[in-house]
């Protein structure tokens, strides 16, 4: 089976130290005001009294989905799912920075880089993995809440965790992208992913613009075929002309032309 890198997160271990966010930011030089990963929480729960108040933290990042709506929104293929490791990547040189993919991610995992003017997001630390190292967030986490590996390799830690535990995925009912971050047991919050939607021009292109262009090209092609057929197979001598040349463009009758 093909490699699919994934994360299995035990969110009950997360203490909201934000080590993963800081490590990622430094490692990937993420500009001010933007993050490639996050820690969500479900708000403070005082139901057991102030002393026993609790809060649940949920670390996350791009989920390298099996049905990546971001890839589907990208016109150029700059955003693509790499067959080799199942990671959804951005080809920086092919990205035109149109931003079509940004609202197409239910998780808000993408942002437009304010300096590079192209889209940026988590790539499971491609450059670190090339050196045989784990992603920065995984290696940094003090409670080891984030486990990382190939879920299609039955011998990997993540596969075993998936086999031995009940896991959940956080999805928006209207846009189930089949994300590759699994949460052990239960997690919260669950209601934050939005409906994935490509911007209007991209949707219009697929909905009718492509068909319209084909229709217009088709009509003109039929016109050309009609003219070609007539030219090749029909003897249509010009009236008042002995020769059978199909020389076009002559007045059929002599017409007085008014000169300005």
């Amino acid at each position, binding site marked *: 089976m093909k490699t699919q890198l994934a994360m299995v997160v035990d969110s009950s271990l997360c203490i909201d130290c934000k080590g993963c966010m800081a490590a990622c930011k430094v490692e990937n030089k993420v500009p001010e005001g933007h993050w490639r990963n996050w820690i969500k929480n479900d708000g403070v729960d005082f139901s057991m009294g102030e002393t026993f108040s609790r809060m649940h933290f949920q670390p996350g990042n791009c989920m390298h989905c099996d049905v990546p709506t971001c890839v589907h929104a990208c016109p150029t293929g700059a955003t693509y799912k790499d067959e080799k490791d199942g990671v959804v990547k951005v080809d920086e*040189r092919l990205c035109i920075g149109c931003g079509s993919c940004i609202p197409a991610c239910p998780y808000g995992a993408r942002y437009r880089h304010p300096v590079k003017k192209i889209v940026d997001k988590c790539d499971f630390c491609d450059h670190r993995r090339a050196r045989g190292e784990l992603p920065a967030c995984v290696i940094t986490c003090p409670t080891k809440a984030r486990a990382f590996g190939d879920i299609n390799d039955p011998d990997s830690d993540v596969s075993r965790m998936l086999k031995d535990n009940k896991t959940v995925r956080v999805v928006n009912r209207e846009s189930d992208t089949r994300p590759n971050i699994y949460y052990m047991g239960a997690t919260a919050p669950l209601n934050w992913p939005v409906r994935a939607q490509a911007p209007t021009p991209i949707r219009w292109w697929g909905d009718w*613009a492509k068909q319209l262009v084909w229709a217009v090209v088709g009509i003109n092609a039929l016109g050309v075929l009609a003219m070609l057929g007539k030219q090749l197979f029909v003897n249509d001598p010009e009236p008042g002309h002995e020769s059978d040349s199909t020389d076009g463009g002559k007045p059929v009758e002599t017409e007085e032309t008014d000169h300005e």
Partner: protein
Amino acid sequence: MSDEQSIQKDDAEEKEQMERHTKLSIFMHWFNAACWLFLLATGIGLIRNADLQPVGGWWTDMMRGIFGGGANLLLVHEIVGILWTLVFLVYVIAKAKEVVPFLKEVFTIDPKRDVLWLVNKGIQMTLGYKALYKLDGILKGRFGYKPVIPDQGFYNVGQKMFAIPSILGGVVIVVTGAIMTASNVMLENTAPVQWAILIHFLTVGFVFAGLLIHVYMASIAAGERPAFISMFTGKVPQDYAMHHHKLWYDEVREGR
């Protein structure tokens, strides 16, 4: 007056050539055609998304194969697009004396004469001359209809109907292309970029549709050979000019 008579009458005069295109305008036409076809092929190859790709994924694969990946394909598309734009900018500015009369000619329409030409020429090219008389029998002179293909000027209105959208379309393609190229260099707002992508695609599609007719008319249609040759030599025989562009012929004859 028919070919044979006129040739008999004054062979030497009728075979004389008339200046139709300058060397520079011929170069610009073929430069434009080469850029256009190159940009068309590479541009379609830039569309990876299957919903948007009008030809099919095989075209995208083939183009990316030839140019060594999508990023390089984008780069050559942008470079040739910029070259195309710059060369035209220089041409239009430096040769305004040649360009302005061309634009004037192309954008001047004589509605009554030209609509009749379009209808009748269209019928003649597809159904034949007989259909013109049938139509005349049906209409019996209503709507001012006559079974005639009216005389035309330097360009006939069919040529103008291609030239106008291809000039205006060219401007739209350049502007939207520039917006997309600028997107990852300096633009902050992405909404114009997303609209530019759609408008770029639509405009190219429409001009391409017209191009099918243009290329047929220019290189295959019966009787149009001299025009094709003139796109290399710059000259057409007088008898051709008289038959196809009578108003222009008369104008030149009258020395205007």
